[in-house]
């Protein structure tokens, strides 16, 4: 004899699924459709009405995408890895240093400087886009430029040019500073009495204690560098250093009227971040929860 009260309770806890499950299906349909399309043959993908399940799984589409035009996709991929890894490493290092100083060191102008750092978060990228482009191109004494910034191309069309403008990030510094603040000052006192220097203390004592915050910064930064489009697009010129996000828009023209190959390209470019998301869901959620402070 089922308890009616319990039954009602159970019903109320499962009723939302009637809406949520179809909703989730709609949300992931584009990914499913992408994968299915990417495995169809050229004839099948252009067939009307479209088939849902591929008659024959043509896995060679991925190899074709990777190889045509020769060396292109692999190169884009490598560039994205360089961009994401290099940018994230640089960002994590300089953000850690600044965050630690703001949290545990005393120096004149600390508050003012921190406020100035935070102020950069309120400026939209569209305003900084053009002046930063000019700055990167006309950096004096770099990339063949003379002292007045002319004659060469500065950091235009270089990896560093893609990385540098977003390498310092006030949000990351803020996040890490909050984490550092939770470390009691006594730790540093004890370490200092033992003859430990600032940097060694930071590396071997403080940093391990803020690992969760550092993980959020690293995951978020990897995503941002991997997914960035506008800046790498305008600040580069040669396909040889362009990342995947810019590259697949170019491939879109190259694979004109071969949607199965375009879908394979899309799947390939999504794959690394999809894996990272599934592995680092917690960090990703935390970074979203923190973005309340980011607006």
């Amino acid at each position, binding site marked *: 004899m089922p308890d009616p009260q319990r039954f009602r309770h159970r019903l109320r806890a499962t009723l939302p699924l009637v809406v949520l499950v179809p909703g*989730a299906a709609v949300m992931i349909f*584009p990914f499913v459709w992408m994968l299915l399309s990417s495995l169809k043959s050229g004839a099948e993908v252009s067939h*009307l009405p*479209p088939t849902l399940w591929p008659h024959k799984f043509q896995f060679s589409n991925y190899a074709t995408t990777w190889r045509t035009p020769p060396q292109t996709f692999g190169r884009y991929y490598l560039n994205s890895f360089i961009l994401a890894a290099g940018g994230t490493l640089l960002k994590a290092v300089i953000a850690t240093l600044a965050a630690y100083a703001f949290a545990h060191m005393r120096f004149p102008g600390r508050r003012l400087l921190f406020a100035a750092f935070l102020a*950069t978060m309120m400026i939209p*990228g569209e305003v900084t886009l053009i002046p930063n482009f000019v700055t990167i191109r006309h950096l004096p004494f770099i990339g063949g430029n003379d002292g007045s910034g002319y004659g060469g191309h500065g950091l235009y069309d270089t990896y560093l040019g893609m990385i540098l403008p977003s390498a310092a990030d006030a949000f990351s510094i803020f996040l890490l500073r909050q984490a550092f603040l939770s470390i009691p000052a006594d730790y540093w*006192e004890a370490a200092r009495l033992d003859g430990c220097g600032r940097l060694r203390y930071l590396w071997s004592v403080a940093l391990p204690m803020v690992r969760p915050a550092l993980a959020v910064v690293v995951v978020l930064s990897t995503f941002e560098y991997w997914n960035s*489009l506008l800046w790498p697009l305008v600040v580069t010129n040669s396909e040889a250093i362009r990342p995947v996000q810019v590259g697949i828009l170019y491939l879109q023209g190259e694979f004109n009227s071969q949607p199965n190959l*375009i879908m394979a390209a899309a799947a390939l470019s999504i794959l690394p971040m999809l894996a990272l998301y599934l592995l680092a869901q917690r960090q990703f*959620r935390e970074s979203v929860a923190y973005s309340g402070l980011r607006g």
Partner: protein
Amino acid sequence: MTISLDKELASGRRGPDRLAPPGAKARRLPSRLRGVDWVAYAYVLPSGVLLGVFGLWPVAFGFWISLWQWGIVPERFVGLGNYAHIFGSDLVDHDASGHLQAGPVGQALLNTIYYTVATVGASVALAFVIAYLLFRVRALRNLLRTLFFLPYATTITASGLVFVWIFDPQLGVANAVLRALGLPAQTWLLDPTPIGRKLLAPIGLSPGLPDALLGPSVALCVVIVFSVWNTLGFSVMIYLSGLSALPRELMDAADIDGAAGWRKVRHVVLPLVSPTTLFLLVYTTAMSFKAFTPIYALTQGGFGGGNGVQRAGGPLGTTNVLTIEIFNDFYQEQNKVGYASAVSFLLLAVLMLLTLLQFRLLGRRTHYA
């Protein structure tokens, strides 16, 4: 024993930084400089230089650029000429017969407003419903949360290609569904018809208003659907953390008082999460207003063969939002770098005004528990 005593001593002061370093030198310094970690400047320097050069300086420099006619190099100082051009003819214009019409920047601003209002409205409303339902279920909760969040976590450019394929006029699955339902196929991202005219046409109405006032074009609507799909996970996540922070007693009290279903949502849950709603509205409005990638990825040329170097902006410029306008002026045209910079400051001004307005209007209706 000594260690614990040490700790007590240290924590009794206002932080370790107050401790003067040993040595005669410290005694000669003025008291406010005693115990200063001079090395701190070296720690802050790399971030400080980069944020200064690429974060703060561009505001002044960008404004300076906007006062020039600027191509590859600065060509001619024009003062406020670029702004005069925007406000003189590019925002609102007269056609040959003297009627008012939107200039290119005005059209872009209107497109931006359509895009922002629709994306934010749909995304925040849907997010609340989904988050509230997710909050109530136990089974499958983690899996569902992961799935709803997936689009936000993946690359916009790549998922944009998928949407272009889904809405392909010939082979897309969207048209296949319409045909199966006996409805006429659409050209989607190639269709500049305003949605108002499109929806009224089947019932025989054809309003005599200019196209610009009849809502976003069908193409822009597809972009909006894409953006809602893309940003929904973010808003759901924010609502979920807002809901789980609510005091349990209040929710339970509502249950005991017999407030169930819609009444509980309307009178208990919605007021309680209103700070979250305010944050989401302000934040997603700013994000939509500044959005570039979703629009660019969907309308930079389509499967017809775009190599990323043609003018973006969709059919008849109906998906040409302000960011796309800036990009086109800056990247695709000669001599318009200064002008593009001026448009970017227009965007900044409108965005700031909008944020202020939202805080004023909605702030009053927000309950901080």
